[in-house]
């Protein structure tokens, strides 16, 4: 059991290291969020930038970003997330402005 534990631990650490290495090869998130902002709007307002930043900060903590969301669905989704994901009221409003301006 002790031997297996050491093997398991080593395998786990190796796997996590490999994953981190792979992650390091992929695109840094902060930069890509800015790029996305510039692509979405030719002159992003402070509100939308703030909302996008908060979107990236909070929504990606649990799940991949949705590929497509109807603007009509966004208010209910965000209130749902405010309760479930412990968003502040300000975060909810900022993300709402970003997702359904």
């Amino acid at each position, binding site marked *: *059991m002790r031997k*297996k*534990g050491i093997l*398991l*631990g080593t*395998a*786990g*650490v190796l*796997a*996590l290291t*490999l*994953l*981190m290495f*792979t*992650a*390091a*090869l*992929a*695109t*840094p*998130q*902060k930069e*890509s969020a800015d*790029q*996305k902002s510039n*692509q979405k709007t030719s002159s992003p307002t402070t509100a939308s930038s703030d909302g996008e930043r*908060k979107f*990236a*900060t*909070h929504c*990606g*903590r*649990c*799940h*991949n*970003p*949705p*590929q*497509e*969301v*109807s*603007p*009509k*669905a*966004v*208010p*209910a*989704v965000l*209130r*749902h997330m*405010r*309760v*479930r*994901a*412990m*968003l*502040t*009221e*300000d975060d909810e409003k900022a993300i709402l402005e970003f997702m*359904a301006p």
Partner: protein
Amino acid sequence: MRRLIGGVLLIVGSSVTLWSQDAPVISGGAAWVTTKNGDATFHQPILSPVLALPLGSKLLVEARGDVRWLIAKEGFTSGDYQSTFFGTLEYLQLDYLAHPNLTITAGRFLTPFGTYNERLTPVWIRNLQEVPIIFTIGTRTTGSSDGVMLRGTKELNSDVQINYTTYFSALSTVNKFESARTAGFRVGTFLPESRVELGLSYQRFLQSQHFDSYGAHLGWQPWSAPLDVKAEYAHAPGGHGYWIEAALRDTSSSGESVFRHLQPVARLQQFWRIKPFAGDALPGVDTQQVDLGLNVLLPKEVRLTGSYGRRFTDTVDQNNWNIGITYRFLFPLSVGGSR
């Protein structure tokens, strides 16, 4: 009977139209998951719809069901295939946003112990389809509670948010509303600038046996790399353990990166049995497990999932295989809607 149903639908529809300024939403996930644990193979078609119904500016009704069939051979290893149906109401709650820092919830809600149960259980969210070994600590007996919950988040400054959840649950043996008599709380700190969350959970189990469970959770999504790291520790009288999971999460807008569509996952977990404890649904012996998975993100919210795990105990070692497909859906209902 038709008139009665029609009348109820009319009243509900009218109420929704009058009350709701935002469109209600139906979302959730559908999945097919095939699992092979040792020699036992089983298949599960799963449908898990979620309703979010805003009422005015302060109220929200939320509900999630879980409908699944367990298709397996008799005794799991031999014989004819048979299917067993399971239908579960995981939550049906009314949330009142009383204050920017306080939400009052009444009804049936997911027991807030750690973060896995509340945030990571949907089939379309979880990185690995198998729940962690220590999942039942703090969530027994059903993962859901019937009672009252207070929760909220306070932003101290742009760098620090603190959140809290406290609840009381009554014992219920009502079909689809089963829950245990418990009380507990969870507190956490989230640092938005570094995307780090740390928290502690406590629960007092208050029926038949009285005992304490406590736990800690960590979440980290560094800005410098598309990595999602989560970990939890939990302790109950019968045993204690932890899991740590790392997954690639590339949310960049660049379509060139292959990692935008591939998500490798690794999870390491260990559990130590302290003493036999009736009904805790934990392994009977010390257990260690490592899982490696790969998810493929396809268009239209479809995802292929696959993983291999090896479980080690003093008595037996076992391979666990898992493959599946998940689909996430989300659409507004036609009534209401200000946007």
